[in-house]
């Protein structure tokens, strides 16, 4: 009896060991995930984090599409849950801070974004954190008739008031489709003790909308403390560009069939009516000939 129990215990132990070994083997085959997190604040009201999932393959980092990620603010508890999303083809997810976390967001100056990635068949679970200090940018325009200047101020929240940020690198410019166009002497400026910079806007030929409006902007890029900040403001400092009639709205040879040039319609339909009119007339004559034969 005793030996039977020993055998049973041995088998149980062996099975348990085998299971543990299999789990370890599976885990060692899965790849480790590395998460990078960047914080963005646009127009001081739209905040989000951009997280990228990567893994090392043959000594090189490759992005991981299809990884499920969950984001929390400050603590991994249900109340602080921000959102969850799956990485796109570039291995990225963009997670916006929801309105329901407004009280938590305004309560302190510093916040930590915690992002967890879920394990799957090929990758292990991963975690990343990013701590930032809340900051704002303000933009204003100064014009005295002879020169035009862009004034940008930066402030950080200290828990009670907004304090000017000294020594912050800011890039002013004009927003175009491809990004920020440099329109000042320098590409970037550093804030003074008042947390401000002033840069002269020199280009007077820049095309704007039909009223000459252009979008001035300023940005802080990948700052260790404040992350990425962007502020814009519309100003009538551009050259008015009158909207021409849309290229495809014109009646041309290359547009859709509903935009055929009138001259072509006239020629084609004119010829068709003339020729087919004659053909129909000949057919009518034939009918007449048939009738004459039956009389």
């Amino acid at each position, binding site marked *: 009896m005793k030996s039977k129990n020993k055998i049973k215990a041995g088998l149980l132990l062996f099975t348990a060991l085998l299971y543990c070994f299999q789990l370890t083997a599976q885990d060692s085959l899965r790849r480790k995930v590395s998460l990078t997190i960047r914080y963005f604040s646009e127009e001081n009201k739209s905040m989000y984090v951009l997280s990228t999932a990567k893994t090392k393959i043959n000594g090189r980092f490759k992005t991981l599409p299809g990884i499920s990620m969950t984001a929390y603010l400050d603590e991994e508890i249900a109340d602080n849950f921000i959102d969850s999303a799956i990485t796109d083809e570039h291995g990225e997810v963009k997670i916006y801070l929801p309105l329901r976390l407004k009280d938590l967001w305004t309560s302190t100056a510093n916040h930590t974004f915690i992002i967890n990635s879920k394990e799957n068949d090929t990758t292990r679970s991963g975690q990343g954190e990013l701590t930032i200090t809340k900051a704002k940018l303000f933009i204003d325009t100064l014009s005295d008739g002879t020169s035009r200047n862009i004034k940008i101020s930066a402030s950080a929240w200290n828990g009670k008031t907004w304090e000017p940020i000294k020594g912050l690198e800011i890039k002013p410019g004009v927003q175009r489709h491809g990004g920020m166009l440099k329109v000042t002497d320098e590409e970037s400026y550093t804030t003074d003790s008042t947390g401000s910079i002033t840069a002269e806007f020199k280009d007077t030929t820049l095309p704007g909308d039909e009223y000459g409006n252009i979008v001035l902007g300023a940005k802080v890029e990948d700052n260790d403390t404040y992350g990425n900040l962007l502020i814009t403001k519309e100003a009538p400092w551009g050259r008015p560009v009158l909207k021409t009639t849309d290229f495809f709205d014109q009646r041309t040879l290359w547009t859709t069939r509903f935009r055929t040039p009138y001259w072509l319609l006239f020629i084609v339909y004119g*010829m068709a009516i003339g*020729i087919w009119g*004659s*053909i129909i*007339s*000949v057919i009518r004559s*034939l009918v*007449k*000939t048939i009738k004459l*034969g039956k009389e």
Partner: protein
Amino acid sequence: MSHLSHLSDDQVISDLLPRKFGRLGQIWTGVLILLCLIGAFAYYRQLRYGLSVTHMRDYVSWGIYISNFVFFVAISLVGSLVTAIFRLANVRWSTPLTRIAEIIAVSAILFASLIIIVDMGRPERLLNLFIHGRIQSPILWDVIVITTYLIISLLLLYLPAIPDIKILIDRADPSLKKFHGLYRFLGSFWKGTKDQKRINHLSILRLSILIIPVAFCIHTVTSWLFATTFRPGWDSTNFGAYFISGAFLVGAGAVVTAMYIFRQTYHLENYITHLHFDRMAKVLVMLALLYLYFNINEYLIPAFKMKKSESAHLEELFVGQYAFLFWGAICTGMIIPILILITKKGRRPLPVFIAGVLVVIGAWFKRYLIVTPTLLHPFLPMQDVPSSYLHYFPSWEEWAIAIGSLSGALLIITLFVRIYPIIPIHETLIEKNEIKE
């Protein structure tokens, strides 16, 4: 027609009535039907497996089908040449040739329309051309003008044939008995009254005038399908005139070929005489010289400039892989026929027939050379493409369909000749009796 004055009306009618095929005719018809069936089977394969059964790929997307299409369109111009231009110019000797020209035109234009549908790959999408067609596109102009030309050609074939159909009804020839229902349907109303004759004559005259601009349009628009695209060999302002001159030549070549065959088969020596061959041969020489002139324009000037982007295409034609075909087409299609027909001996029936056959063969290969080498030499270099994209030689399905379509056109002419007189009986009688009086 003075040479017919010794013949009685009955004799003329009896000579020109359609006849039962002999053994040779039956074999000929059987071979044509067989070739058509092989073509139909190849087309079934193309419908089932898609255009991948052809050897057309991304670069050569217009292969032998479009060459055939251009050939058919070209040959159809003969209808307007002989029927309309000669009729309006009061060229009386052309009377025996008018119906030959018209049936060639009708069968060619019919198969031009069909071969375009074959080239589409998905025939059920033809309707989209009308539903979503853009009037700015030369392809739609081509569809409109081909349809119009087909209708006018059919009318021009039918209206002058009405009095002949009446003769076929009246002459109870036993070999034609099975077609009497058809004859009655098409011509029983014809009584030959003054009013009927006047209306019919006016209608033919109107159609003769109408078909000339339409024929010019069809060939010009077909040339624009090429000339409106920016490619070596096609980027020409001269293409419309070049195509029309080539079409007149091949059409005339087809007529003299058909003239000889019908003359020999039906013993029509009294009706298609040496005079007809002599005059058609002179027309052929003139047209060959005209087409040669346009060819020199089309190739000499680009060769003189030898733009880098076009040099590969031109060198392939002049000294490269297409040189044999190119010079062969120029020689057989123009130079040799001119040399044959320029002498009086060369304008006898057999040499004219040989020259006509050479013109037609040369013309077919000329169309192939207009389409394929250009497509294989685009302005942008061909890089990182499968090797099958770099060359083109038609697959057996393409050959079978092309040959099937040519056979189909010949079959229509053959069957027409079995049912209707290939030489207008009524007009021949009128002209004979006018001379007699």
